[in-house]
């Protein structure tokens, strides 16, 4: 069970944010292309940062508390998935605020008259 410590946290975040898609209809899972581009723009630099810090010895991972699958630069699978799950949850939260507070602009609103 100890091996699931990190994976459980990622699953918790995914489950906790799922109602935002289903009930608030934030439409983040529905926009996978836009989400994928964000993952590239954010995930790549942060994974590189993480690899550099791990290689420099700033921190290490207790592999008795991860699934034991090691990826690029000595990062556990969960650590790489962290940079997918956290951006996803962040964006869903921003979209949830937008849905519940229509008068607070996020900055990418298109007026109905604008060409798409």
């Amino acid at each position, binding site marked *: 069970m100890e091996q699931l410590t990190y994976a459980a946290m990622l699953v918790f975040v995914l489950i906790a944010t799922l109602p935002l898609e289903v009930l608030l209809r934030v439409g983040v899972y529905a926009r996978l292309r836009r989400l994928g581009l964000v993952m590239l723009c954010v995930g790549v630099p942060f994974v590189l940062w993480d690899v550099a810090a791990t290689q420099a010895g700033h921190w290490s991972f207790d592999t008795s508390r991860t699934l034991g699958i090691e990826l690029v630069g000595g990062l556990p699978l969960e650590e790489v998935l962290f940079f997918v799950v956290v951006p996803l949850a962040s964006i869903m939260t921003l979209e949830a605020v937008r849905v519940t507070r229509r008068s607070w602009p996020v900055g*990418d609103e298109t007026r109905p008259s604008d060409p798409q």
Partner: protein
Amino acid sequence: MTHSVAVLIGVALTVVLDLAVLRTRLLTRRAFWTAYAIVLFFQLLTNQWLTSRGVFVYDPDAIIGWRVGTAPVEDLLFGFALVTQSMAWWVWWGRRGVQPSEARDPHPVVARLAAFRHR
């Protein structure tokens, strides 16, 4: 370079990215700070789970030593950079017309609840 210095640079780059490079200016918006406050609450919860169980082992020489619960204070800044950049790129790609934001109504059940509350 220590982790403390790295996260300060990370935060500075994030501010420059949002205000000057992407010009998304999320840092000036109430919607952003509200969303960030919610994410921060969950970051404190989940990071406490991970650090109290020793998933991460920090080199004491790489961090300043201040902790929030069992988590190094540096993690808060790292999280701020990650969360803010994620939202900024999301808004930027939306502005570029990639699956842009359109008016969406909440699920009818939620809408009914909201209407009920305001009665």
